């Protein structure tokens, strides 16, 4: 792997995990009696940016390297399902996350100005599903990396 690909992979994983972590923080913070909307705006805004960076870096790594160098190793190894199920699912499910976090950020911006209990619950649900999908993607990443031997 070239140094550029190494840094791309590192950036993809770490920004993705950070983004999921921020969504987790958003969700937990929503559970407080009096959430700090400014804090939530910052967290959700950063999660959008981090997911976009993770998306862009994954695109570069996937298209230029994974297909020709990593996928054959997985498919020829003991755990081909790591690509056939988890990589295929992960690469498509991930596409939903930046849009969901963008919606979350927009909702928090409104909630900061206008308190609405129903909208707050809906925003919490967005955070929860984004977190769940993010956790699935992170675990899939572990399975895929572990199958590269």
């Amino acid at each position, binding site marked *: 792997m070239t140094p550029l690909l190494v840094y791309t992979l590192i950036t993809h*994983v*770490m920004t993705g*995990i950070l983004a999921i972590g921020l969504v987790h923080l958003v969700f*937990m913070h929503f559970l407080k009696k009096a959430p700090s909307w400014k804090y939530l705006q910052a967290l959700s805004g950063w999660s959008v940016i981090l997911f976009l960076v993770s998306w862009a870096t994954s695109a570069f790594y996937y298209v230029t390297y994974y297909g020709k160098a990593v996928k054959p190793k997985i498919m020829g190894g003991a755990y081909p399902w790591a690509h056939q199920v988890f990589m295929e699912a992960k690469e498509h499910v991930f596409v939903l996350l930046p849009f969901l976090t963008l919606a979350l950020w927009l909702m928090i911006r409104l909630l900061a100005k206008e308190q609405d209990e129903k909208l707050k619950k809906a925003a919490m649900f967005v955070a929860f599903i984004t977190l769940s999908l993010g956790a699935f993607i992170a675990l899939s990443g572990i399975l895929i990396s*572990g199958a590269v031997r």
Partner: protein
Amino acid sequence: MEWLPALVLVHIVGAVLGAGGATFAEINLVRALRDGEISPDESELMKGAYAVLRLGFFLLVLSGFAFLLYFRLMDKTEFLYSPEFWAKLTIIGALSVNAILLQTRKINILWGSAISLTSWYAALILGVLRKMDYPYFATLLVYVISVVVMFFIVRAVHKKFCPPHTTNQKTS
């Protein structure tokens, strides 16, 4: 630069902060409930312990994924399919779910404390007992039994130090 020692250090710090935070959260809770109610000062003290705990969790997860990257880039990926690694991941997952259940008051505080304490110390112990290849389900069975044992310990401590009917007290 050799990254592994730095990663190990951050991971250990995360686990220690988490286990320490969980321990002091429980100690502070018992102390706070001794008079039957949680004062604002006591609540602030517990918030501090929870903040340390959350920081520990984030350091643990971030450094954990940094480890994943390190092993992937060094072509040493067998570890990622090891039973004890997945047992540790399951326990971290249980910790995360427990935090949500505690925050939403959907779990009794004694069970929540038991799961939190057991999970953090289990993560520490599993980190120390690396490469021992314990079977996944056996590890989880020991974990579940430990949670139950911890519940009875926490309940006994609350019975001894806290007035009756405070075991369902909500924390701030």
